[in-house]
């Protein structure tokens, strides 16, 4: 398995892990009040705002650990350079990821039209974020394996 594939696999696992752990921890703080109350919307606002720095920090830590483990396993100090093929693969995977994300956004908006609770809409948005990232990373692994 190449360095790029390993990196994509780590990104995939960390995306799922970080969001799952964070969601489980935050769900314990979910306000037990009217689903349309100010507290509920404040909760979701804080959920997304805190997720961003938490995700960035966790990813940096995971990436450092991955780099150390990869060095121990392969004795390669530096990560391979990123070249035109990497950029093309990332662009194509990003396109698939965006399609999935927009489908998710449409579903989230559809949930509001169907008069489901705002919590459902926010949960769909969170799942969409994770699924689009999974699609991006899996697509990249696929392109690295199949060729591009």
């Amino acid at each position, binding site marked *: 398995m*190449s*360095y*790029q594939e390993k990196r994509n696999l780590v990104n995939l696992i960390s995306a799922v892990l970080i969001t799952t752990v964070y969601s489980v921890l935050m769900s314990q703080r979910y306000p037990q009040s009217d689903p349309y109350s100010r507290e509920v919307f404040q909760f979701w606002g804080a959920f997304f705002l805190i997720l961003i720095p938490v995700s960035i920090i966790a990813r940096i830590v995971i990436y450092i650990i991955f780099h150390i483990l990869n060095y121990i396993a392969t004795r390669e100090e530096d990560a*391979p*350079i*990123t*070249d*035109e*093929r*990497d950029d093309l693969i990332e662009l194509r995977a990003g396109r698939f990821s965006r399609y999935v994300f927009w489908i998710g956004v449409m579903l989230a908006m559809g949930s509001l039209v169907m008069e489901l609770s705002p919590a459902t809409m926010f949960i769909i948005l969170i799942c969409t974020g994770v699924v689009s990232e999974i699609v991006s990373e899996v697509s990249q692994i696929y392109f*690295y394996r*199949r*060729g*591009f």
Partner: protein
Amino acid sequence: MAKLLISNNIRRLRFNHGEITQQQLADRVEVSRQTIIAIEKGNYAPSLELAFRLALVFEVSLEAVFFVEKSTP
């Protein structure tokens, strides 16, 4: 439009140039070894710039490195 199947002589050219490794060639043209492997296997068609860089390393014309094997309808 018919799709061109582009093949290459990189493996043979590496052999003729003192059996330079894929890693050495990758370093010379500033790409990763994975990219050289993908080009050699015909899994990746490089940009024109990279194709010229490869030709310059081997000191041959572009046609001596890459050629059209066949076109598929």
